[in-house]
């Protein structure tokens, strides 16, 4: 059998293509080492169960929100997630503040108003704002690295390892729920001395949750780490009877019962993002 040039080129070409594609798989760093791990993962059995197709949602009773419940919820979140509290000399938040859940006024949170004759005390009443964990999250659509993504249970999550700090998500979020780390939180906050105790703040924070680094965006994660071990989000635990949380697909859940009893509104509904944080009025 003789091989002409045509056949020789064909066979060697195909051989090279097969060899390269197989070799490429092997050359991918860590691919082989990672392959043997893949069968060894399981979900935490004590996590709060969610019905099929369900998603997490929250209801906030703004008629019951007072100074105490507001600050309790914010403080619980701050502590749970090591959120730095950048304040100026007068104790007011500075421009680079990091917000997960924060107190604001009704008029600022709800900008789509039917008329201009709403009483002043309503407009200035307290509201807690946080990430709405939208059904159609614009932040997820714009993220170039999929650092922010939507989980099957509806939580819009941040993967800090992937965030490149482009801040597209901050521009996309209509609710201002995202904060950028302009400073290194360790250097600018946690390594600083607490004026009350005189010790570095790092001594008092929990090592269960990481801090962030300079140049990443952060926001509320509905306490995904607590849901996984069978606990309600920190703010809901801190303000019982004011904040309700649960499975939006289960008519018997806390949040759905609260929503079926009372009239509720959402922030900027006309945008079609379908927020999953509801406000009972």
């Amino acid at each position, binding site marked *: 059998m003789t091989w002409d040039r045509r056949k020789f080129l064909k066979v060697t070409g195909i051989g090279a293509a097969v060899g390269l594609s197989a070799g490429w798989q092997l050359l991918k760093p*860590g691919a082989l*080492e*990672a392959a043997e*791990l893949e069968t*060894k*993962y*399981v*979900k*935490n*059995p004590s*996590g709060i169960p969610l019905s099929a197709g369900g998603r997490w949602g929250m209801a906030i009773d703004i008629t019951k929100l007072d100074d105490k419940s507001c600050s309790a919820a914010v403080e619980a979140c701050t502590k749970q997630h*090591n959120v730095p509290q950048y304040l100026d000399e007068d104790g007011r938040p500075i421009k680079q503040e990091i917000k997960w859940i924060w107190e604001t006024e009704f008029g600022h949170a709800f900008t789509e108003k039917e008329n201009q004759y709403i009483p002043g005390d309503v407009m200035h009443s307290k509201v807690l704002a946080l990430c709405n964990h939208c059904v159609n999250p614009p932040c997820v659509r714009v993220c170039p690295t999929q650092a922010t*993504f939507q*989980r099957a249970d509806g939580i819009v*999550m941040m*993967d*800090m*390892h992937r965030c490149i700090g482009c801040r597209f998500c901050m521009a996309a979020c209509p609710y201002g729920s995202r904060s950028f780390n302009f400073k290194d939180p*360790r250097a600018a906050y946690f390594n600083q001395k607490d004026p009350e105790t005189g010790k570095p703040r*790092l001594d008092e*924070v*929990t*090592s*269960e949750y*990481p*801090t*962030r*680094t300079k140049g990443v965006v952060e926001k509320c994660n509905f306490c*995904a780490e607590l849901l*996984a*071990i069978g606990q309600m989000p920190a703010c809901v635990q801190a303000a019982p009877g004011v904040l309700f949380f649960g499975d939006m697909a289960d008519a018997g859940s806390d949040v759905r019962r609260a929503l079926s009893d009372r009239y509720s509104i959402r922030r900027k509904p006309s945008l079609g993002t379908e927020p999953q944080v509801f406000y009972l009025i």
Partner: protein
Amino acid sequence: MYDSKPVITGIVIFLVIFTYPLWSNVGSASTPPKPDAKPALEYAKKANLPETCVMGKDYMRTSHMVLLDNWRDHVVRQQDRIFVVEDENGKTVAQYKISLTSECMKCHSNKKTFCDSCHNYMAISPYCWDCHLEPKEVK
């Protein structure tokens, strides 16, 4: 050979200067660190954890960074928070919570002797600890 004196002298001087980094550093190489497994076993007993690590010793030596990378993707992106350790027969020996700071560091509790000694020797500085907090050492 013409001009052998200056040529040979020149070659000798060149060789001496060229090999200076080699012979000047002879004997000053630092010895590779040997992380001691004994304290880890003691801490494992205290924390009520099994004696087997999440993967074999050889795997962990060469590929712990792959494991940690894989862990973070599974926890953050796929919500898998438990890692199952099996023996050769496929029987479950242990289940570990997937967490660098609150599980690995329970046994390997001393970051300085466990993590840093090798990383410093290899002159690499992983950025894990820029965010993750080293737990206070268990006494």
